[in-house]
């Protein structure tokens, strides 16, 4: 199967000879990588129009891939940079104070109200379209700085060191934002998934 683009320099290091450092086939790009770029931009920017602009910018950069990093790592970096640049251009910076997800505890450290178990098992929820829409809406409602980390780490499944590098944050900042994003999402989703009392 034909590679999408030919790497212009001859591979000269062990890293560059690694198959992960080769460009993907057109089919793999069309079916797998391209949708991932679009999903990422759509979730981080929150609208289809800006996501399409970023998507096309990223695709146009494909011929600049030189095989110095794994293709997927390179692609995510380019996509995140283009997304952050697009957001910066629109000056959509947060001004509101960030919500405190641990406010549901008394001063003595106990829960303000009993926590109920969620009624559905994950495997069931994973097949449920309504649950997907609910999740997407909840993620879109996260504060921007939490959403960036959450989408990269928990939706895309990137390891924390990569998220740290892409967003220019410390490991502690990534962990703190990720944890707060998870707590906020859990809190938003709880009313829909909790077992109902009799």
């Amino acid at each position, binding site marked *: 199967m034909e590679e999408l683009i030919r790497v212009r320099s001859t591979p000269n290091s062990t890293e560059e000879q690694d198959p992960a450092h080769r460009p993907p086939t057109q089919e793999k790009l069309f079916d797998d990588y391209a949708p991932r770029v679009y999903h990422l931009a759509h979730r981080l920017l929150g609208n289809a129009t800006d996501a399409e602009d970023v998507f096309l910018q990223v695709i146009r950069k494909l011929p600049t891939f030189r095989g110095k990093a794994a293709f997927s790592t390179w692609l995510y970096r380019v996509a995140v940079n283009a997304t952050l640049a697009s957001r910066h251009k629109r000056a959509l910076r947060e001004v509101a104070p960030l919500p405190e997800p641990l406010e549901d505890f008394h001063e003595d450290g106990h829960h303000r109200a009993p926590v109920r178990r*969620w009624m559905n098992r994950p495997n069931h929820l*994973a097949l449920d379209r309504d649950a997907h829409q609910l999740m997407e809406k909840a993620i879109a409602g996260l504060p921007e700085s939490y959403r960036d980390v959450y989408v990269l780490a928990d939706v895309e499944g990137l390891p924390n060191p990569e998220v740290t590098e892409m967003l220019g944050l410390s490991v502690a900042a990534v962990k703190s934002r990720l944890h707060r994003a*998870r707590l906020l999402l859990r809190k938003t989703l709880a009313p829909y998934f909790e077992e109902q009392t009799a």
Partner: protein
Amino acid sequence: MITCRELAEQLLDFAAGQLPLGQQEHVEQHLRSCSSCAAYLESYQMTIHLSRQLPGPPLPPNLARQLRALLMSFDDQTR
């Protein structure tokens, strides 16, 4: 014994299995005696699990057409 709030603060490291042994034991001890925290942990992990399952919005047809055209142009450039 740690409080519910202290447990919630440590969930990220606990869920990743990265808590030091002593702290991990404190969390486990608390979970055995607090049904609210056990439910809280379960729903925290379920939130992560559900996020990993999200399929993402479909590529709009016009964008898919533009993508195909761009890929063909790259192909022409490298011939």
